[in-house]
């Protein structure tokens, strides 16, 4: 008898718990409708994925876009440039964020196989910034050759005195993005001549803030990452100039877009699937992207491309 009573009680508890679950679900369902009153015409889903460097721009555009068209769902992911292209070239996403051009033929062949057409749109430029600790008082500028000597795969440089004659006897400690990062791809390609090729004995992190902390507190440190991370931490880092043969140039909001800061300025793109662009919500979104792109690109810490580049993007898209 008691067993039976206990049994029914436990069953009823299960039902109560289930009831709470369901209430929760229904509650969730109601909330979606609250946000959509003004504009009812435009609906649909836009899928964006790719580079974590471009992510803040796409997020900002999506956020502004949602204020105008609340019923369009814009999903933005951060799988990295390579991960984003993997999804883009099989038609999983409508737009791919990229901090390098699509790889030919490795990635383009996949797109061709799946019949994916696309248009590349330039958004702006990011300057990879080479930094040291503020307590480092002997380096102002490094040449491409010196950077290569430090970062090449079989580098034997463990001390600043081996970098250049006259540098003090101080152990050098290296910091950089991990191998999944587009920043790592770009830096190694420009400095070491081949993407993904680097000396392995450096502190690698997917989180650039970890690099900032490491470089900032270590007198012998040297590291690199996107300009936005330097711009947010000017008090904790010392920015170096880079000499590619025509004198030392410091990355700045002037030298990055002008092309003076070379070769460590990298382009930022979005790739738009041309079939997706035929859908009204994607078309309106991308057109909006081109309209507000320059302002928002600057706002999140990069340097936007010129008006003419954006105009060129638009004209290529309409073809």
């Amino acid at each position, binding site marked *: 008898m008691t067993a039976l009573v206990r049994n029914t009680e436990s069953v009823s508890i299960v039902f109560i718990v289930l009831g709470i679950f369901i209430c929760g679900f229904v509650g*969730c369902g109601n909330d979606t409708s609250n946000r959509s009153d003004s504009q009812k015409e435009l609906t649909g889903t836009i899928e964006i994925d790719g580079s974590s460097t471009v992510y803040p721009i796409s997020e900002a555009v999506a956020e502004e876009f*949602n204020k105008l068209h609340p019923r369009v769902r814009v999903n933005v992911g951060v799988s990295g440039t390579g991960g984003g292209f993997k999804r883009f070239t099989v038609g999983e996403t409508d737009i791919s964020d990229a901090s390098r051009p699509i790889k030919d033929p490795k990635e383009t062949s996949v797109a061709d196989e799946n019949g994916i057409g696309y248009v590349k749109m330039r958004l702006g430029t990011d300057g990879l910034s080479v930094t040291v600790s503020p307590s480092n008082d002997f380096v102002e500028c490094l040449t491409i050759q010196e950077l290569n000597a430090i970062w090449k795969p079989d580098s034997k440089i463990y001390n600043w005195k081996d970098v250049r004659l006259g540098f003090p006897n101080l152990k050098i400690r290296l910091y950089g993005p991990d191998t999944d990062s587009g920043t790592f791809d770009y830096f190694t390609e420009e400095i070491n001549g081949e993407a993904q090729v680097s000396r392995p004995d450096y502190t690698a992190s*997917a989180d650039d803030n970890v690099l900032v902390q490491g470089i900032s507190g270590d007198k012998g440190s040297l590291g690199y990452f996107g300009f936005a991370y330097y*711009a*947010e*931490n000017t008090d904790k880092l010392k920015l170096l100039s880079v000499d590619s043969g025509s004198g030392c140039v410091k990355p700045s909001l002037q030298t990055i877009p002008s092309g003076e800061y070379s070769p460590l300025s990298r382009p930022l793109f979005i790739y738009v699937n041309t079939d997706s662009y035929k859908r009204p919500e994607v078309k309106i979104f991308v057109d909006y992207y081109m309209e507000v792109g320059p302002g928002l690109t600057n706002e999140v810490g990069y340097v936007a491309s010129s008006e003419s580049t954006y105009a060129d993007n638009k004209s290529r898209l309409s073809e």
Partner: protein
Amino acid sequence: MNEYKPVANSINPNRKRRKIIGASVYCIFLISTLVGIVGLGVLIFDVLDKGIPWLNWQFLTDYPSRKPEEAGLYSALIGTIWLMFMTALLTVPIGVGAAIYLEEYAPRNLLTKAIEINVSNLAGVPSIVYGLLGMALFVYYLGSSEQFLGRTLLAGALTLALLVLPIVIMASREAIRAVPDSYRQGAYAMGADKWQVIKGVVLPSALPGILTGTILAMSRAIGEAAPVIAISALVYMTFIPAHPMERFTVLPIQIYNWVARPQEEFRGLAAAGIIVLLAILLTMNAIAVVLRNKYQTRSEE
């Protein structure tokens, strides 16, 4: 008594040393315990210190934003709650069923032994492995044909269910094994058959243990970032899923994204997100404790 005295005396010279060893061992163990607690204390203090200024109602009900003062974790919070309940709905019947089979029905043979060893080994597999398995199986294999599953809540819940099933099975087995055999024999003596014994006697007595194990397993599931990143791959979302076949994001992903932002303010938001996640975890653990206490006192009556 007296005949032992010489022995006691011969030990006496060492007494001081033994006392010192005793005291120092006590200190070492105390310090070992404190390391964990102090570490946790510092962590919680740091998170509270950074996160509390950002924690307000708007933070809970706003969608993500590039502006820290407008950013919130609404979509991630609801996604986490959805995922937790769906994982529970999938895990509990299968986990408890497997535990009942292994404890009550399974013959003691090599196959059973192999299954048991497998289950306990699976509990130790790193979570990212489940994430990749879930991505290959649910997202790509079952999802490729016109988005049957795809990167949906259901795919996420199935993956997390795989992840926590071994924990639920092991906890449920422990609970079922702890039911005294005399209960079963008593029920058999009354003429009950096997299923009646399990349903009427074993399960009700084992329920507190099963519930506790399940809730703790759910706490683990919602704290996992790695497998869900593989499945969802989403950070920015301005809607909340209305049914299990929609896209989703969860708190750990949102926190991870905020931590990696260049702007200092987002670290505050990440800390506030951690507080929310901790609050959910602690609430669930509290529910587990309350349920266990409630049922335990009742079954003792």
